């Protein structure tokens, strides 16, 4: 694809930046391969979700304002490779900054053009097959905020289905939370572990050799649990899965 | 007590200032089917799905025969029955008595000293016989109303409940029935919507019937006119209104 008709801003999110840069690079490569001109606004940090979910609203507001200012400079759509950060920007910024008149229209503009990655691929680019190929047995874990916050249910499994040579298997209790929940994983560590155990059992039961999700938080949680169990199931972000071409 | 009333209402009002008054929507009303035979088939199907045994009859003598057979099969000796005028088939009660069944009446509050003995007698009844004021097709529900001559315990206490329902009284849904039953509710102290036999799943979700109420419910769905129920209902409604006034003045005296 040589002709560029789409452009997008990539907001990588703090977890992808520090812990899973491969997912950010894969997103970038994937979008460019599909002919999108990608801008990565420099100076991006964190959307503020951890603080918001912990009730530290003043801190969350500061981060929200910072991120809105950063992203509203360009009119290009914003692509976020994370369901929960996407949900934060699309839905929560409005209530968080509701009392700040100076931000009302900025927040609306940013929220209206923010997409989670799979959403952008299917709704904006209208892509169903990205031409990926790999020999894997894949189970998809729908992360909660992508599923119930942004309402994205079918796009990621459809994209995974299109990978040549891959086999997609269903994950028992797929829509159950993996127990990450941000600071919940530490504040309620024991509960979080019990929820994770159930998810890991389901992954093993599914017979998959690869588990895919669209949220770096859930991936970090699930992967950390699989490593502790000594499992060799590999964990991939959707973007990582979609750029593979053996 | 009055202080609390005022304080509670005041707190509600002061909170309300911040809330916009949402208008009340019209409930979604399914389009009722005009086809009465489909309605009745649906009623029977749903009632059977919740564990009710349904009998149908288009002749008065057949109806009597069915009820006597159900009572006989269950070995019923003692029966709590509604008054003949409150059953769609008025001769049912007499037929049961002629068949050797003994009637049990609820205790009257007047003789308090014999009350517990009379209660104990009620508890030994084997069956209850009632007449429904309505049926709901989409849930298999029967609607019963209490009143003079219509003890509630007849449908609650014995292990077997036999209820006669005239087919003209089957409504498509609860919503349709509720839309029309305002007067019925206003003039009856107890209107019961009964959907199947008494059941519980409190022990590990294992379904068990007959925990407090009847274990077995038989509906006799009749098409014939023996004792046109509409007329007797209208008459009852009038009597009840009079008694309501009596009752209320008595209550005023008590309190």
């Amino acid at each position, binding site marked *: 694809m040589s002709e560029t008709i789409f452009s997008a801003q990539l907001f990588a999110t703090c977890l992808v930046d520090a812990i899973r840069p491969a997912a950010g690079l894969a997103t970038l490569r994937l979008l460019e391969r599909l002919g999108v001109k990608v801008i990565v606004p420099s100076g991006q940090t964190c959307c503020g979700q951890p603080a918001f979910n912990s*009730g530290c609203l003043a801190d969350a507001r500061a981060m929200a304002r910072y991120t809105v200012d950063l992203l509203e400079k360009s009119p290009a759509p914003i692509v976020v490779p994370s369901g929960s950060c996407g949900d934060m920007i699309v839905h929560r910024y409005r209530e968080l900054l509701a009392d700040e008149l100076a931000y009302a229209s900025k927040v609306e503009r940013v929220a209206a053009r923010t997409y989670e990655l799979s959403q952008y691929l299917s709704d904006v680019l209208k892509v169903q097959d990205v031409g990926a190929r790999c020999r894997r047995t894949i189970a998809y874990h729908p992360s909660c905020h992508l599923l119930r916050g942004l309402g994205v249910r079918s796009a990621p499994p459809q994209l995974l289905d299109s990978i040549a040579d891959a086999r997609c298997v269903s994950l028992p209790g797929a829509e159950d939370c993996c127990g990450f929940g941000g600071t919940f994983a530490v504040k309620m560590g024991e509960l979080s572990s019990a929820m994770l155990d159930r998810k890991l059992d389901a992954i093993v039961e599914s017979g998959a050799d690869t588990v895919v999700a669209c949220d770096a938080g859930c991936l970090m949680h699930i992967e950390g649990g699989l490593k502790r169990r000594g499992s060799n199931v590999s964990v991939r972000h959707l973007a990582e899965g979609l750029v593979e071409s053996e | 007590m009055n202080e609390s009333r005022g304080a509670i209402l005041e707190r509600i009002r002061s909170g309300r200032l911040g809330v916009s008054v949402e208008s*009340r929507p019209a409930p979604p009303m399914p389009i009722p089917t005009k086809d009465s035979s489909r309605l009745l088939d649906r009623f029977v199907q749903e009632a059977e799905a919740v564990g009710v045994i349904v009998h149908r009859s288009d002749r008065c003598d057949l109806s009597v025969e069915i009820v006597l057979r159900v009572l006989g099969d269950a070995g019923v000796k003692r029966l709590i029955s509604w008054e003949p005028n409150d059953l769609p088939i008025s001769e049912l009660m007499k037929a049961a008595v002629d068949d050797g069944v003994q009637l049990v009446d609820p205790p009257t509050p007047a003789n308090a000293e014999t009350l517990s003995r009379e209660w104990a007698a009620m508890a030994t009844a084997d069956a209850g016989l009632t007449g429904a004021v309505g049926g709901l097709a989409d849930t298999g529900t029967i609607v019963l109303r209490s009143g003079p001559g219509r003890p509630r315990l007849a449908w609650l206490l014995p292990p077997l409940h036999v209820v006669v329902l005239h087919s003209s009284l089957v409504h498509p849904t609860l919503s349709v029935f509720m839309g029309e039953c305002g007067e019925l509710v206003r003039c009856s102290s107890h209107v019961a*919507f009964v959907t199947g036999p008494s059941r519980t799943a409190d022990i590990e979700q294992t379904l068990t019937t007959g925990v407090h109420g009847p274990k077995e419910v038989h509906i006799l769905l009749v098409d014939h006119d023996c004792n046109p129920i509409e007329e007797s209902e209208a008459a009852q409604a009038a009597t009840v209104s009079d008694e309501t006034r009596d009752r209320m003045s008595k209550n005023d005296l008590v309190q």
Partner: protein
Amino acid sequence: MNSPSMSFKQRVSHALADGQLRIALDRTTERFTSKRVAGLASLPDADAVRDCARSIRLHTLSRLDEYLEQFEANVTSVGGQVHWASDAQEANEIVLDLARSRSVKRVVKSKSMVSEEIELNQALISGGLDVVESDLGEYIIQLAGETPSHIIAPAVHKTREQIGQLLADKLGVPMTDDPVEMTATARSALRDVFLQSEMGISGVNFGVASTGSLAIVTNEGNASLTVTAPRIHVAMMGIERVVPALDDLAVMLLVLARSATGQKLTVYTDLLTGPRRGDPDGPEELHVVLLDNGRSRLIGTEVGEVLACIRCGACLNACPVYQQIGGHAYGSVYSGPIGAVLTPSLDREGPWHVLPEASSLCGACREVCPVRIDIPRMLLALRAETVHTGKGNRWVRVGFWLYRIAATKPWLFRCGVSVVRQLTRMFFVNGWLLRLPAPLSIWTQSREFPVIASRTFSEEMRDREEGSGDE
């Protein structure tokens, strides 16, 4: 068994270690969840009915004072009596006074969350009355001396074997694990209780303002008997439980049973309008106790919507946290997601600010709620209030304050990431940390923690830009 003196986290540990409890929870919540789905599928347009049910509840709450006055006037006009109670103590005194002035000795009860909330049983028993619960599940836990662990299935935490043993111990019947036999035992034990009690106390699912009727639903028929056999019926009702008219009631009933148990309609749906009027049976007196106990204060606040709840229990069954720990671990009468909102909202002085933390905010509760209450949003509002009032963990607050400073200054953020990277890279094994210091050590008890990448995404991007600049 959990004790009230334990902290929430201790109760969670206890529950997670209780194998029997987890078996019982697994069996029950799964079955409830699949039945709910099937139940709603039987409605032609379940989403429209849920929208309508929600609007009815919100509309009623927005004019609650008017509907309550109308309800009171209509209850009175059919010969009933309405009592208003500001708090638990006042409600208990009202019931106790009624019992005393009418020489009541025996009381039979049907399940009522409101009476659990105000601890009515304890008040009546201390007042010298015999009180027996008639719902099978409540009867079982009353025999066991416990409290309900689920809004609609109070004994969900017990296995059949435990219940069989309990009945054998308390009633002297032979031990069995057959639910049918156990149910028959309870039927005969409770029969006399219904017929010999002078007072029956019930809850109220909905009060209908336009007719003064009380709608009460049960599958067992125990509420029907509770409000029929005894001479006096006392109905305990939260002030939020009113609906405007009978057609509104019909909509609420369409979603209540389906969401709770998957049934299209509960077996017994009783509409009670005043005491008996020339009937051969039924109560001679009807008293409605309208309980506030912190509810009126919520109207117009961020958690006001919690008053729209119809107590179906669907959010409990759907909640991955409840599925793990059951109801008792919450330590409060109302458990699960709705309990985590309701409990700290009604009892602001209580030790409940930890409950809103017991959620991963996965949103499963919001998805199943028949009246679409946004429970996660309210959990967030309560968390924010905890921080705002200084009741929360100080270190969390300081931590996020520091994080915010870094996150709004990109150079500082980069430095921060580098420092943490250096720290994590001192201890890693194959790219993972096997142990973290407290308070993060809880993570590494069951999971490994990733180290910061050797090149972060933003570092990669900077290299890329510099690279392209050279071209």
